[in-house]
């Protein structure tokens, strides 16, 4: 019998659980030239804010063992460009569910962006990012306090009837109260984890590698931390979890799902190998057979 890799996320059917993570796939245009975007389970578009942003000065990238630091700083053309220009262009390239990733520096900015995304026919899911470590106000601070997380979720929930996911930061002592706060305010799901703040120093120049001094650490090195957070949140909440953090193989997709993830975002792996997502998707059925998994949905949170 044929392996069933499909999963349901906020009522939307994905043909497989593999989603390129926001910020590691642009808006999809570059990869559309390399492979058919319809092969992807969904696409998380680059993080977008109310106003256009240039982001941080370069260097924005520092390599580490098992990953990299990035301090891009939410470079993006703004929500209006996303909904009026970019989203329609991506939709013209594929039928794949599109996830708008929204960042803000005040609760109301999140709200206005969500309203605009809600009004955009091409956007299927809204992912609210309260976990960006590379901006000097707002961003992550919303994700480290249950009350602030609740406030953003409440405002976003008011703004949209589309599936609403909140992307959380691992930079907390206890994810449970924050995850529950988002669930209680009506979030349809959670995405975790975003990057962990890190720093590298150029010992020859005796200064930080990144112009921003610190950046977000991502890559295979984060995988065990992400699995733990996903398992904690999935155990505490009823809403579906998108697992994100260091996934680069089909086996890791399955491990993340066994921890409790309904779908899985692939991030840094795209930066080392732009074909990472289709490669993982192609490998899934064989690995499922090996592990006697007929239906991928059956293993969600099985441990």
């Amino acid at each position, binding site marked *: 019998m044929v392996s069933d890799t499909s999963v349901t996320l906020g009522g939307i059917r994905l043909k497989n659980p593999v989603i390129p993570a926001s910020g*590691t796939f*642009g808006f999809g245009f*570059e990869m559309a030239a390399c492979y058919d975007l319809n092969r992807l389970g969904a696409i998380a578009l680059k993080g977008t804010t109310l106003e256009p942003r240039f982001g941080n000065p*370069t260097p924005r990238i*520092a390599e580490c063992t098992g990953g990299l630091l990035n301090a891009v700083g939410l470079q993006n053309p703004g929500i209006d460009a996303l909904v009026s220009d970019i989203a329609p262009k991506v939709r013209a390239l594929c039928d794949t569910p599109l996830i708008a990733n929204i960042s803000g520096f005040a609760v109301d900015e999140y709200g206005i962006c969500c309203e605009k995304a809600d009004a955009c026919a091409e956007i299927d899911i809204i992912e609210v990012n309260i976990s960006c470590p590379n901006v000097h106000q707002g961003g992550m601070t919303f994700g480290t306090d249950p009350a602030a997380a609740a406030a953003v979720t409440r405002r976003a929930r008011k703004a949209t009837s589309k599936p609403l996911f909140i992307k959380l930061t691992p930079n907390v002592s206890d994810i449970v109260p924050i995850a529950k706060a988002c669930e209680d305010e009506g979030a349809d799901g959670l995405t975790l984890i975003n990057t962990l703040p890190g720093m590298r120093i150029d010992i020859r120049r005796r200064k930080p590698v990144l112009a921003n001094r610190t950046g977000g650490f991502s890559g295979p090195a984060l995988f065990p931390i992400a699995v733990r957070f996903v398992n904690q949140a999935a155990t505490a909440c009823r809403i579906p979890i998108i697992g994100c953090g260091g996934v680069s193989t089909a086996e890791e997709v399955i491990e993340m799902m066994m921890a409790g993830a309904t779908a899985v975002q692939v991030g840094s792996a795209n930066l*080392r190998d*732009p074909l990472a997502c289709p490669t993982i998707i192609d490998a899934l059925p064989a690995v499922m057979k090996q592990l006697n998994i007929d239906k991928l949905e059956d293993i969600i949170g099985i441990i």
Partner: protein
Amino acid sequence: MDKKRYTISANIPIAPQVYRMELTAEAAPQLRAGQFVEVAVPGQFLRRPLSVSLSEPGRLTLRYKVVGGGTAALAAMQPGTELELLTGLGNGFDIDACPGRALLLGGGIGVAPLHQLCRDLRAAGRPVTALLGFNTASEIILCDELRALGADVHVATADGSAGIRGFVTDALQQVTPKFDYYYVCGPMPMMRALYPLLPDCGEYSLEERMGCGTGLCFGCTIPTTDGPRRICHDGPVFKKNLLPW
């Protein structure tokens, strides 16, 4: 973008800390002058972006400088070793933009892509003058190759140990070459110094720490007169009028 396994056929030191690596692969795609490749180095998470020095049927030549762990690992590799490359990255130089006489200005390891650029310009029948700057005589590379292609090559060394004493800017002012279009590739201070001395009819190949090299991560963005641009995807070569220097 093309992902392909190449085999190292040669990996030879040609100057202090500088190596020429030749790679072969069946049906290797033809790459444009000024494009770059991303080399997967075992033990390093990110690939290493290296500019194409010369692309020939089935063969690729890289000239690179050891600047860190990744390039050091490359320098230690023996012929026969396989490497996975992403190729065809970046826009490359605009050969057609040169209506007549071409001027090439390069500094240090930045001269690497000028090899293929010179070859292709000459193939298009363009007269080529090249001004190359190095710190010292022992670091000079590519002069013979460019001369063999029929280019008029002038060298400057910072310590005066060969050619004109000083920088490429000094060479430019002393040689005063006639040209209809120019191409610049070298360290940022050199390009910044040349920028005000040169007319609009030219382009600059930029460099920055990259994440992906394929336009996905926005790690190498610079401001231009036409808004933010990714060096890896929209560059690395930019027309002068795009650079807000």
